[in-house]
């Protein structure tokens, strides 16, 4: 595999950063802005890392957006009911994990297409979220200690950036360095072969979907901490972007397999483009057009080098 094929997407990101730096040396290229980008991409990265798990099974989980929203609403509701920080966080994460486990269980045991299963699950979760919140934005009663989990700096780095890094390491560890992760990838590669070599399909799938929505719930908590409020559809915008990040990452490394560093890179590309275009003051419709073009270009860089066979 040629160099441009192996590191194409990384080269793509570098080129994008270089381009924006040249166009806006004082604003874009300033360190504080670059650091800020790492913070802006972090929630997307966390959701996308979760999606990486289900993609490694070659499945989709379309409920992630709804779970992000749900986590926010559940946590603020619990705070509102006077719960403390630890129980609130635990209950929210357990709820998030459970959503994925249910999807994973149904998908694996009944061979339901995950696309439709998780779309339905996302609708159900969205309905529950509406029920809990009555459709209103919830705020108030959020402890400051909780809010500090999603804002400010720690040892010079934005707290959110640190969370995203931790999530990346976590996902990379699971996928590359645990039996669970290898089993997920084997199922994703050839389900029947994996089954016949003794990979337990149901538990592995349940974990993959569960980890996916667990990370979505983490992102939902951090989003709430960052904003100081929770909105019943506030996380829905993450859905397509998260999968875009995973797909960008799949083309980035490892010959087309979902992988954690790639997903982080994908999220970075999306965030850099959004930040750069905003700084350049490009009108919003042109932002859309450029975003699309840049993403296509980022993938092309890699595939042009790869088009052998």
């Amino acid at each position, binding site marked *: 595999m040629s160099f441009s094929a192996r590191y194409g997407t990384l080269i793509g990101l570098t080129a994008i950063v270089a381009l924006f730096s040249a166009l806006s040396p004082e604003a874009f290229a300033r360190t504080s802005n670059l650091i800020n980008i790492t913070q802006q991409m972090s929630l997307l990265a966390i959701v996308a890392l979760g999606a990486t798990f289900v993609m490694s099974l070659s499945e989709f989980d379309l409920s992630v957006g709804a779970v992000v929203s749900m986590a926010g609403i559940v946590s603020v509701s619990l705070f509102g009911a006077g719960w403390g920080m630890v129980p609130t966080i635990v209950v929210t994460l357990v709820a998030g994990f459970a959503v994925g486990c249910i999807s994973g269980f149904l998908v694996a045991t009944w061979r339901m297409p995950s696309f439709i299963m998780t779309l339905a699950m996302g609708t159900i979760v969205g309905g529950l979220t509406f029920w809990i919140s009555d459709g209103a934005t919830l705020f108030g009663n959020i402890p400051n200690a909780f809010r500090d989990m999603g804002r400010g700096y720690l040892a010079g780095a934005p707290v959110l950036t640190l969370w995203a890094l931790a999530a990346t390491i976590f996902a990379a560890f699971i996928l590359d360095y645990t*039996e669970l992760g290898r089993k997920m990838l084997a199922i994703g590669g050839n389900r029947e*072969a994996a089954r016949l*070599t003794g990979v337990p399909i149901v538990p592995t799938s349940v974990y993959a979907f569960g980890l996916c929505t667990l990370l979505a719930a983490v992102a939902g908590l951090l989003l709430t901490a960052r904003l100081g409020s929770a909105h019943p559809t506030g996380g829905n915008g993450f859905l397509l972007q998260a999968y875009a990040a995973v797909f960008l990452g799949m083309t980035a490394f490892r010959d087309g397999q979902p992988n954690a560093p790639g997903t982080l890179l994908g999220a970075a590309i999306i965030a850099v483009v959004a930040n750069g275009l905003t700084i350049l003051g490009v009108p919003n419709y042109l932002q859309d057009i450029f975003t699309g073009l840049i993403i296509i270009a980022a993938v092309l860089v890699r595939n042009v080098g790869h088009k052998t066979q």
Partner: protein
Amino acid sequence: MLEIEELRKRFGGVTALDSARMRVAAGRVHALLGENGAGKSTLLKCLSGVDRPDGGTMRIGGYAYAPADPHAAEDAGLRFVHQELNLVPSFTAYENAFVGRRYPRRLGLVGWREMRARFAEVRDRHGMELDIDVPVGRLSTAKCQIVGILRALMDEARVLVLDEPTASLSEGEAKTLRKIVRGLADHGCAVIFVSHRLDEVFAVADDYTVLRNGRTVGEGSLSDETRDQIIALMAGEEFKHERAALTRTGAPLLKLSGFTPAYFRPPLDLTVNAGEIVGLYGVIGSGRSSLLASIWGANSLARGEIRIKERALPAAGIAERIAAGVAYVPEDRRNRGLVMHHSVLDNAVLPRLSLYRAASKLPVPSWRAARRGIRRLLADGNVKYGKLSDRVSTLSGGNQQKVMIGRWFTDEAWLFLLDEPTRGVDVRSKAEIHSMCLRLAEDGGAVLFVTSDIEELLMLAGRVLVMAHGRITLDAPNHAVTRQSILDATFHAPDRDPIRKTG
């Protein structure tokens, strides 16, 4: 008719073809021989326009021939049956025969009825048995192979290329195919035939070309050669294949009573003892593969009692088998055996992930230990590969097969269920797989293997089983059977036809 000179092809760092030469005459059957990874399939892919050669020339009937894509090859009158079966699983057999060709039409629409009729006609003309109305995804490997062959026989060909067409066919079908091949050659068609079954090669082919490491190392007429000479050419050295004879048996390891793989099959009783190598023979569709898969616990419809080392196991459940020390190798490596786009390492380590743990209680593999262990395992199995991180799909067919078997040969497993284990494996590696089985049996393990190759059956099995229509119709030690008694048992008439139509 067809002349190939100085053909070269590299894949990254691997040289697959390095000045290969071949001359095929019209009206002759030409055997293309060589060990696994010698470059046979690659040569044929260059011929079919799938791969573009790096250098060399090809001529057909004196004219330069350089197909840009599979269509060009088809237009030039070449027909291919590739080693890896390429069928669309959701399509029926007859539609698969027309994929990439012009469909028959009625009023500009796809003429389904004519399509089916034309294919059925070809099937009947060649005397093949095949249900052509179900999606091929539901057919067994052997039936799929027949679909692929019939596809190539749909119309007149100048050159017919068969890459291991008989690898999973049993005696009867293979014989029919040989008859077809002879018939075509007699009509002036040039046939290129790749096979690792040498007796078959001698039975059907007129000429031969031997490849070694991508080079042509010998060619000529088969009537001038002996089997041993050909083997020596392929392997580059003298090589003798010993016939196994093992009859010592111990305690029962596997015991089936009233075991049914599926509701439409009759119940079976079967015992496999320690130290035994049991060969299971039968025609296509006799129920061997489903029996093996059911013993493996991969079949949720299986019912009945199954004991391994006296311990009763649930009728379905793969994990219990693995824990009990059973290993299983399916016949269809592409769809059921390997994750083709994953690396050699990932594939080899998959059934034994917990063997390479960094710490015994921690489900975290140590990749260093895994790489070391797998390198040794693959070396034992004589697998030819580039790097452990290469995709397993870049290995030659026989080497893929060896990865799939070799990965189970660790100390944990002692009862092997092998479905066509030497499918597409060259003579020398076949001997190595056989000796691995022998060693296992000598150490108190046991092997139950399915084969469609009667040679192999007689060579390896200490005890011969024959299945017909889901029943065991013959169970006798090796020394007590003959070719004829096996074939008789194969065609044993059923009391009633237990096989119901699928779909």
